[in-house]
């Protein structure tokens, strides 16, 4: 079986500074994969590389077996990969309902249609409503996204990300800045919504990581130093030395 | 012919340096604050008019110093009481504010000074031919303009390398997001940069006023070319702005000096064809299209190099 995501020997440098060096990563289909590492290790850069936000200097990235490195983000998205952002990145002046619906439109085949009434598309309507329900924002459907609370915006962020029905979901620190209660809710949400899909997640909160992930990769200085199940990672001396020893005691 | 080349080169470099006096301020302001100051050419115009007025009152030399300072003060006031309050509404609102300002300044200037060209004369001390090339005089005042522009250019370079604000500006040019981390002083730095940028534009106005025309439409004539310069050079790139300024200055001057048209190159078209866009294009001379050359260049550069000559930034 081909892996959902296959990163092979990817390098990325800005100017002379190499941020990612010889990155290799493989995420199997249906797997929940967490990427952890200290600040500045290149986690977000890795996300940006895979999702097409930036182009690798060298190396190759495959999605479900197809080469996607060098493609534009929307091309990658259309092939079934969707990502969220670390900094909340919603459509601030549009309502919650419209935010999610925008995420649904391409996937339901309406694309750039200018001859259809967007309010009269039953499939779009149902799907949007279901997602709103899923992210518990139905009661806020007509509020402009910019006016939501922080936690609500994070949930909306996830909603937009999954709206298109992508098979691979990438979440960049989905619980950052949340309280304990909110985090628990978000984790449950993520677990439920990514059922049957491939999930790649970057997260600082180790309880989230170890609670959620099937496999974990540890990124240090732009390089994966270890990859394995949570237990393997816990026991890996290299990880302990480079990362866990410092931050998790 | 040699005469034309020498004179055109001098004029072209001169015009280019004037453009750079303006585009450097515009570029720095844009890099730091993300605002493209639409009213920048209006500050140039204000410089010329202040220069004219002060010259009548207290003479050219004091005006040369005072007028740019005044324009700088106006610029700082615009930043402090206008842009700073508009910042929360985003860059488009800021751009629109400066657009409205450009409009208002032009109207105020023509209200106060009228629409006719001002009798803004070259100071007597500089009103003599500096040298003669093939029997054509080259005015000393133009040499003076060139010297002032180059001096400012050098001073600017030194200021960027040696002063604290200069270092901040440099950091902003390379890493725009850095500016956010300047701390509580950011407002003062912005105001200062905006003031210096406006003062530079004002200085360009003071020295260009007597040589070119001092009139209430001078901002409208120069403004669009200025934007071409900075987009062409690459938004936010100071070296890019420098190259683009000189290039456009030279191109515009040399285009005027050329007589060629397609008709003179390939011979006239069959007169039986009658008027059509083809005959229009065929017969137009390079000199006639000189003023639209910058815009043609802009389109070309955008097709082949959307970032501009030395630009690195997406938008």
């Amino acid at each position, binding site marked *: 079986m081909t892996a959902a995501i296959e990163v092979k020997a990817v390098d990325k440098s800005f100017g002379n500074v190499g941020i990612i060096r010889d990155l290799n990563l493989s995420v199997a289909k249906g797997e929940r994969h967490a990427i952890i590492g200290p600040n500045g290790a290149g986690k977000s850069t890795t996300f940006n590389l895979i999702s097409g936000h930036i182009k690798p200097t060298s190396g190759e990235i495959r999605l479900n077996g197809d080469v996607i490195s060098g493609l534009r983000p929307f091309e990658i998205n259309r092939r079934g990969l969707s990502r969220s952002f670390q900094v909340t990145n919603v459509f601030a002046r549009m309502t919650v309902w419209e935010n999610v619906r925008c995420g649904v439109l391409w996937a339901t085949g309406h694309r750039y249609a200018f001859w259809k009434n967007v309010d009269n598309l039953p499939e779009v309507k149902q799907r949007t409503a279901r997602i709103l329900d899923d992210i518990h924002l139905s009661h806020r459907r007509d509020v402009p996204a910019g006016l939501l609370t922080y936690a609500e915006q994070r949930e909306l962020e996830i909603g937009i990300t999954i709206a298109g029905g992508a098979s691979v979901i990438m979440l960049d620190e989905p619980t950052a800045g949340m309280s304990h209660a909110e985090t628990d809710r978000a984790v449950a949400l993520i677990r439920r919504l990514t059922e049957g899909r491939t999930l790649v997640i970057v997260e600082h909160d180790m309880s989230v990581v170890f609670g959620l992930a099937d496999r974990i990769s540890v990124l240090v200085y732009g390089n994966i130093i270890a990859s394995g199940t949570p237990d393997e990672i816990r026991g890996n001396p290299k990880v302990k030395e480079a990362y866990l020893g410092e931050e998790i005691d | 012919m040699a005469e034309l080349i020498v004179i055109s080169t001098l004029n072209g470099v001169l015009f280019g340096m004037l453009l750079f006096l303006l585009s450097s301020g515009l570029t720095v302001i844009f890099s730091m604050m993300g605002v493209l100051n639409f009213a920048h050419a209006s500050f140039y115009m204000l410089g010329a008019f202040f220069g004219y007025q002060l010259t009548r009152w207290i003479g050219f030399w004091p005006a040369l110093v005072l007028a740019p300072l005044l324009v700088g003060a106006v610029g700082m006031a615009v930043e402090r009481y206008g842009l700073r309050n508009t910042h929360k509404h985003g860059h488009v609102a800021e751009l629109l504010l400066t657009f409205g300002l450009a409009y208002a300044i032009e109207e105020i200037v023509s209200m106060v000074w009228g629409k006719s060209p001002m009798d803004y004369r070259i100071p007597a001390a500089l009103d003599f031919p500096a040298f003669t090339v093939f029997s054509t005089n080259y005015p000393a005042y133009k040499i003076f303009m060139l010297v002032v522009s180059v001096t400012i250019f050098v001073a600017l370079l030194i200021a960027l390398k040696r002063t604290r604000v200069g270092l901040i500006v440099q950091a902003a040019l390379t890493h725009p997001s850095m500016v956010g981390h300047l701390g509580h002083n950011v407002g003062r730095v912005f105001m200062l940069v905006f003031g210096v940028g406006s003062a530079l534009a004002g200085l360009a106005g003071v020295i260009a006023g007597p040589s070119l025309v001092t009139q209430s439409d001078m901002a409208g004539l120069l403004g669009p070319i200025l934007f071409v310069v900075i987009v062409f050079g690459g938004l936010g790139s100071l070296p890019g702005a420098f190259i683009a300024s000189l290039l456009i200055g030279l191109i515009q001057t040399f285009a*005027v000096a050329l007589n060629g048209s397609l008709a003179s190159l390939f011979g006239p078209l069959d007169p039986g064809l009658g008027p059509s866009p083809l005959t229009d294009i065929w017969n137009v001379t390079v000199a006639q299209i000189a003023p639209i050359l910058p815009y043609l260049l802009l389109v070309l550069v955008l097709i082949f190099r959307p970032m501009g000559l030395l630009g690195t930034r997406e938008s």
Partner: protein
Amino acid sequence: MRHLPIAVAAAVLMLGGAASAQETVKIGYIDPLSGGGASVGEGGLKTFQYLADELNAKGGVLGHKVEIVPLDNKTNPQESLVQAQKAVDAGIRYITQGNGSSVGAALEDFVTKNNSRNPGKELLYFNYAAVDPSLTNEKCSYWHFRWDASSDIKMEALTNYMKDQPSIKKVYLINQDYSFGQSVRSDARKMLAAKRPDVQIVGDELHPLLKITDFSPYIAKIKASGADSVVTGNWGQDIALLLKAAADAGLKVNWYTYYAGGAGGPTAIKQTGLDHQVYQITEGIPNSGNKAAMDFEKDFRAKVNLSLWYPRAVNEMRMFKAAAEKANSIDPVKVAAALEGMKFDVLDGGEGFMRADDHQFFQPIYISSFGTLADKAKEPFDEENTGWGWHLVSKIDTANAMVPTTCKMKRP
């Protein structure tokens, strides 16, 4: 025109429709009163208001008071049409305009259409300064009358003068790149070739209209060509800057111009020190030597604080009165009929006439040079307080300032 409080009232009027008593003869003055050409437009307005006062002081036109209604067109053809429509809506039957042949063409077209669509509400268009020959040739209209000499008439007169000047050998043409500049250029080439085939055209330049801030590259070209005379139709800043750049570069040639005397021009010439090297071709000059004209000039300057830049406006208004009296009516249709072919003694002396074929007024043309005035008693008028003034060089009689027309006049 400037009563702020009426902003609201005027608005209501605009919607509610404004009709007014026909007791006064209203002449809509459609010219720039704001925007780039405002200073010129204001000068024209004052001239016409002075002339209206003059008529009114003598009992008006057939007992009707004459009123000038200012309508600001910002030198924009489209805005002119809005203003013309506004004039029609306000019951105005005469309009006058001068600045910009493009505006003139638009108005001529408007008047023609309006008069054919709204019989009984005819509008006459008195043109006092739009000089594009096409207005009285291919575009000619029965409802349009032009008092200014069109650019080809002036060129005819100028070349008739130049043909007797053996010192002119190499001529350089520099003009603004638009219809007027182009007709100056092509007429100059055609007429010089016919009258002085030995004269060499050493340069023929068209530059963008009102966009050049530094003419020194052009001056370098003129210098390189070895020209002894330059012919230019440039106006506004394009003539002032051209002369300034010439003086800077030390270019010594004679300048034959259409509009060097426009606002700011005399100051610029004085500044450059080109004493009697700049010639202008006009239908009248202040120092013409004609007593009546010079008395008029004196009174005009005293009251309006301007030099009389539009002697043709004087002819226009006085001739309007004469035509109305001839027709014994202020109805535009009758006045138009009376104007056709009408002979008239112009301000500066000599007879002119309104040719029926194309409604172009033909009149004596003057060539004058600008510089120091030798005899202050004979030539009392200077310009813009420079101490310099226009000196009569040559007067070309009406007969030598005639051009044929291609107009096929459609009469109602």
